């Protein structure tokens, strides 16, 4: 079932790197550095603007992958990767989408586990790639039985 989802992707969704959201996020990881939140520091920086912390893209809407129905509970976040062409600038528009990159199963200590790789993309308004994000979600045997995969 999940193997059939490989390659499926969502439509693009427009997101804004909102100043208030960046501030709230930086404070939530106790990293309220002026490069993220002080306008003057941002203007005088080499980015000419405030930037967002590297794990901020968690906040974005990536759209829905049709047909990928994951359980709400019991998923384990195994790995997380970010790649940046440059930092995200506060105030800019980012166009985001996601796809099922891969799915495979392996025997682990708690039975046969599924590994789902979701890859997410963020592009600027000209379609230039700014960042990618990949997450590996582990689906345990118990959870897979519940979803009849």
């Amino acid at each position, binding site marked *: 079932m999940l193997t059939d989802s490989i390659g499926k992707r969502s439509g693009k969704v427009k997101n804004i790197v909102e100043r208030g959201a960046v501030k709230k996020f930086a*404070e*939530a990881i106790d*990293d309220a550095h002026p490069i*993220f939140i002080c306008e003057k520091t941002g203007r005088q920086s080499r980015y000419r603007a405030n930037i967002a912390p590297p*794990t901020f893209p968690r906040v974005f809407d990536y759209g829905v992958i049709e047909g990928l129905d994951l359980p709400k509970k019991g998923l384990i976040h195994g*790995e*997380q*990767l*970010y790649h*940046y062409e440059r930092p995200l600038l506060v105030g800019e528009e980012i166009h985001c989408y996601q796809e099922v990159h891969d799915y495979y199963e392996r025997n682990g200590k708690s039975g046969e586990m599924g590994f789902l790789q979701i890859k997410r993309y963020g592009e600027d308004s000209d379609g230039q790639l700014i960042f990618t994000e990949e997450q590996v979600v582990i689906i345990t045997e118990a959870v897979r039985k519940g979803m009849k995969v």
Partner: protein
Amino acid sequence: MSVLTELAVGESLQPVTLDPVSRLDLIKYAGASGDYNPIHTIDEEAEKAGLPGIIAHGMWTMGNLSKLFTPYYEEGFIEDYTIRFKGMVFLNDEVTLHAVLIENKEEKLNFDVKATNQDGKEVIKGNVAFRKA
């Protein structure tokens, strides 16, 4: 503060030990990230999921770890940040953030990074590639 690009291979950034994890930390992160999975904020839901208590979002720990590099954004930026989630972080745990330079290339610095708990156990570990300006 020392300049990141002057660090020698094998040298570490100054480790940072966070305050003990509080419920409010996780409520704030849930709100800021939009990740409201109740195993991070509601005791009964964590227990129902078979956990001894609420656990921190892995992404909270990953977000915290990146702040070792925040003072250096004038020297470059984090180009690649890869993390494997190794263990759970519980309420009142004292998490320490570590980064050691393992490679100094012309265009980037490669670090091994990790966060450990008060028992020295790794809770997340991975790599940061810092692209030089």
